[in-house]
């Protein structure tokens, strides 16, 4: 159980796919103009990642090494098709907003990267933890970025037609936050923040270890 939690937590901070590993950026920057779009995108990626990791980990003894990449892609593509058709049927407005990004989950580096790097070599329950953790880490960053961009850019946050937060009419947001350059710039500062945070965690860990060894020797 401790191992499970350790694997799950890694995706959230230390190995966060977006701010640390820098994979799966395209979708993040493109759909983060709206809070609701980002939320559903995060959920879609989490679903596909967890399900494909589970299937690949369960079948890892039957998948020949040489054709593993095509097999991974077929598994991933099936789950993406499920998401694609489900969203098209039940939340058409969000589906239209996300557009080409739903089919593009197939080639999202996060999913193939975790299939190749983790799920193919680990047992099923660990692969589930990894999928959930990585998916949650992805969803957290994308939703945070979208919240900042939508709030700063338009002064309100809308979720499925109802306004959640709204500044008054006096607010004239900088429109650049909603445009493409804003995504790059805000994300750049988020990456710098994550780097700073990880650096602090690292130095605190080193200090704690130094203290422990000093106490042990004393």
């Amino acid at each position, binding site marked *: 159980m401790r191992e499970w939690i350790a694997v799950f937590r890694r995706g959230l901070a230390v190995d966060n796919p977006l701010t640390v590993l820098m994979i799966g950026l395209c979708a993040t*920057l493109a759909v983060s103009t709206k809070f609701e779009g980002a939320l559903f995108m995060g959920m879609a990626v989490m679903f596909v990642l967890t399900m494909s990791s589970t299937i690949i980990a369960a079948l890892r003894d039957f998948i020949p090494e040489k054709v593993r990449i*095509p097999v991974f892609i077929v598994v991933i593509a099936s789950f993406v*098709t499920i998401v694609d058709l489900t969203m098209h049927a039940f939340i058409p407005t969000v589906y239209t907003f996300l557009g*080409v990004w739903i089919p593009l989950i*197939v080639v999202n580096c996060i999913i193939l990267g975790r299939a190749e790097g983790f799920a193919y070599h680990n047992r099923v329950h660990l692969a589930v933890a990894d999928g959930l953790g990585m998916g949650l880490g992805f969803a957290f960053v994308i939703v945070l970025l979208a919240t900042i961009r939508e709030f700063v850019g338009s002064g309100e946050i809308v979720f499925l037609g109802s306004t959640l937060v709204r500044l008054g009419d006096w607010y004239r947001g900088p429109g650049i936050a909603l445009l*493409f350059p804003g995504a*790059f710039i805000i994300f*750049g500062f988020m990456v710098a923040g994550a780097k700073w945070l990880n*650096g602090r965690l690292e130095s605190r860990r080193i200090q704690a270890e130094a203290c422990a060894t000093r106490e042990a020797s004393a």
Partner: protein
Amino acid sequence: METLQYFGLILVGAALVNNILLTRFIGLCPFFGVSGSMDTAIGMAGAVLFVMTLASTATWVFWNVLLVPLGVGEFLYIPAFILVIAALVQFVEMYMRKASPGLYRALGIYLPLITTNCAVLATATEAVKPGFFKMNLPYQFGFLEAVIYTIGVALGFGFALITFAALRERLEVAPAPEVMRGLPMAFITAGLLSLGYVGLSGLFGI
């Protein structure tokens, strides 16, 4: 003349106004991954131009000859296209290794990477599948239009990648705070570069 102008508009619209990297965020992984030096950027741009054109041609034929007549396009296009592209890249790699070792050495390492590059799948889907194409042009592309559009997209990709690589080479030596070094700074530079491309939108009414 009329047709020439039309194709020119498609080309410029795809390459500059709707630049795939900087105004639409497709294919950003190689944009940050291989833009460390000019040589790799140029190699990658060449490989993308080559593979993208082939892939769109193949998927166009596949869609119009096989998927549409069978009536399975709507739910089978994702697995079908990605498999066509993956198989195509494998064949091209094998053929190139035998036929032109020089070109293989130049592009070789980038070819497998391109299979999972979203830019290739996105362009192939856009050029083929009606409704995915976001510019104000006819939704259903003919064969020649699809190829021209793809070449335009690939040229825009290469142009943006090479510009960005040149900028990053200079930024390596810039004095900057420790936390901003490397990728954070690269993102902000990309934002400023993208600002220039946003200025182009609406220029040709595309």
